[in-house]
């Protein structure tokens, strides 16, 4: 996922490091200053870096369609967001510990006073407030106490806003020049404001549920018709869907990500939805004619560096959806483009939804081939099976989408087969 540096990565690096570069000269990291002073100075710098990581992480929550391409797709942004939050958490704890250790050479009491000063030292206590809030919203994020309930986690994660505002106040009270921090906190606040307040009103497209087609048990394809301005997208992208059907058992008014199954340019927008949680289970019986809103598109699953290279697709479970979108796109443009081979990894025939349609498309298309592999018949897919359908494995760009176990298995298999990691493309959908 991080084999290539994207434009967005550089922007992030600059924003995160800028305060550090500015704070460095004033940090008294001078020779002969004594171990205590040096620890204290490192402690300050850790705090500076921690806050800038926290604020830039908040900026990344903006989720603007199109902007995610700068970062290699939205799932990669979430990973960056998570890494920044993680770094901020570690750095801010380090900040506290180093400052206290820095005072230890004077006396243990002084170390305790640096940590817990008299109550009228507001800046320090505000800093503590920020850290306590961070622990509260990060404990479920990092699953201190097991996997959190998704909606509760999402609400709790909003505590990040008071947390970074308190951390910002803490710094502004202590530094002489706060302009740079204002320049970071305003976009961070703006990003959250857009995501939580403005985008639900301004950033969504209105659609109506036209049809719900059962593909297998617990899997449906929902067909959506635009009521206003339709969303334009590319094959393999995904969007966030908010249903408003009053009869839904769960997830009404909540947004969840789903992969687009239709081809760009089709009148209707189709999504493949498997019951993986409360909200997606409820959507299996969504009432046709009810309103939904969608926001997107996001991701760039089929991003190609060498568009003329032949492709090999591996889809499994509901992870077949982006390839259905890809195959339907090929169907609309017969005779063009490079060769594509799809290997569908299903458990058994009843679970091989979309396979019939994929076979039909393959029959009518000179450059598209669709193969199926049943786990129940053959066990995990092996290199021999892949080579029997795709002898020129090394020549192809490889795309994988499916459950984590399948992705791991294929990654190991392909790496052992000598495929360069840069040729393999995946987009993870799991809760990070």
């Amino acid at each position, binding site marked *: 996922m991080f084999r290539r540096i994207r434009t967005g990565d550089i922007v992030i690096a600059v924003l995160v490091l800028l305060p550090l570069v500015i704070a460095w000269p004033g940090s008294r990291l001078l020779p002969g200053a004594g171990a205590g002073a040096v620890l204290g100075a490192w402690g300050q710098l850790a705090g500076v870096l921690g806050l800038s990581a926290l604020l830039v992480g908040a900026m990344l929550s903006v989720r603007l369609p199109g902007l995610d391409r700068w970062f290699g797709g939205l799932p990669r942004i979430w990973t960056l967001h998570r890494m920044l939050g993680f770094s901020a958490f570690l750095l801010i704890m380090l900040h506290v510990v180093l*400052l206290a250790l820095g005072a230890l050479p004077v006396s243990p009491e002084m170390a305790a006073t640096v940590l817990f000063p008299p109550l009228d030292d507001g800046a320090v206590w505000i800093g503590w407030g920020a850290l306590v809030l961070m622990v509260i919203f990060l404990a479920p994020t990092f699953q201190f106490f097991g996997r959190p309930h998704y909606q509760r986690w999402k609400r709790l994660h909003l505590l990040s806003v008071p947390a970074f505002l308190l951390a910002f106040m803490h710094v502004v009270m202590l530094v002489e020049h706060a302009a740079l921090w204002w320049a970071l906190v305003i976009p961070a606040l703006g990003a959250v404001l857009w995501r939580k307040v403005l985008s639900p009103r301004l950033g969504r497209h209105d659609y109506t549920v036209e049809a719900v087609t059962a593909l297998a048990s617990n899997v449906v394809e929902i067909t959506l018709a635009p009521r206003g301005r339709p969303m334009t997208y590319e094959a393999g992208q995904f969007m966030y869907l908010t249903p408003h059907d009053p009869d839904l058992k769960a997830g009404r008014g909540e947004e969840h990500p789903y992969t687009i199954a239709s081809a760009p340019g089709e009148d209707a927008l189709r999504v493949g939805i498997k019951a993986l949680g409360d909200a997606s289970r409820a959507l299996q019986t969504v009432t046709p004619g009810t309103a939904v809103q969608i926001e997107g598109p996001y991701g760039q699953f089929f991003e190609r560096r060498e568009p003329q290279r032949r492709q090999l697709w591996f889809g499994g479970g509901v992870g077949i959806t982006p390839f259905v979108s890809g195959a339907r796109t090929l169907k609309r443009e017969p005779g063009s483009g490079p060769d594509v081979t799809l290997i569908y990894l299903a458990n058994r025939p009843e679970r091989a939804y979309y396979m019939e349609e994929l076979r039909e498309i393959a029959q009518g298309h000179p450059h598209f081939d669709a193969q199926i592999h049943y786990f129940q018949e053959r066990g995990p897919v092996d290199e021999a099976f892949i080579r029997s359908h795709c002898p020129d494995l090394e020549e192809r760009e490889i795309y994988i989408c499916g459950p984590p176990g399948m992705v791991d298995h294929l990654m190991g298999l392909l790496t052992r087969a000598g495929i360069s990691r840069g040729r393999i493309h995946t987009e993870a959908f799991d809760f990070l």
Partner: protein
Amino acid sequence: MSMNRIAYTAFVAFCAVIATLWAVSVLVAENRETDDDRRLITQQELAANDSLESCWKAIDGKVYDVTEYIPRHPTSEDVMLEWCGRDATEGWYNKTPGRPHSARAASMLEQYLIGELADAPAPTAQPEEPAPAPDPAAHPQGRVLLGLSPGTYLDGRYRGMFSDRGAIQVNIQFDLRDHHFHNVRFRYLSYRDVDYLALEEHEELYAVMRQHRQIVEYLEGRPLSAMFDLYAPENVVDDIDGFTGATLRGNKLISAIRDALNRGVYQWP
């Protein structure tokens, strides 16, 4: 190790470190209460170390040798040099006017502690009855006014104030050691919307401010009962002028000091 595991482990380690530091500080503090024998430094000794080559400062009754630190202080050398060889408490609490140095700076300062300031030079007259003493017949004795036996007031820092008609006029701070005043200073001094501490030397009311400073100097090193000398400030302040009758009210200070004593120790020595 996954990110989740690292975050959890780091958090547990963080809590452990903080708890350890806190526990150690408490244990060490208990241990230290018994052996508090710092070197006593006289005013003359302090005054002799007033240069870039050797710079000592007294802050809140403690003496620091900050010679090594001068080149590292964020300001130019002159700013620190100005306070060498004398009581620098005022400069310490007014990094910028009204804004004290940070807790971090305080922690750095402690590295340079070399001793404690011996009591201010003893006044020429007997401390219990400074000359010229107020007429003993007119007022009860100080000890009687306090109405307390020696040892009632614990050593420590005290803060108190006098307010009247809804406005604070005097806010005073002093350290008490064995019932003697030390480091007496005004935290606030105001009358009829004039902030006396902010007055410039050329301003008309500056003289009143100077008289109040003389009162503070008078109290320095004297026993607690000396505060009652302020009932007759003309005996205490030497440049009485036209303003004195209107504004120099020693009894306001007595009131503020007694308020401080009533409140009890603000900060342990």
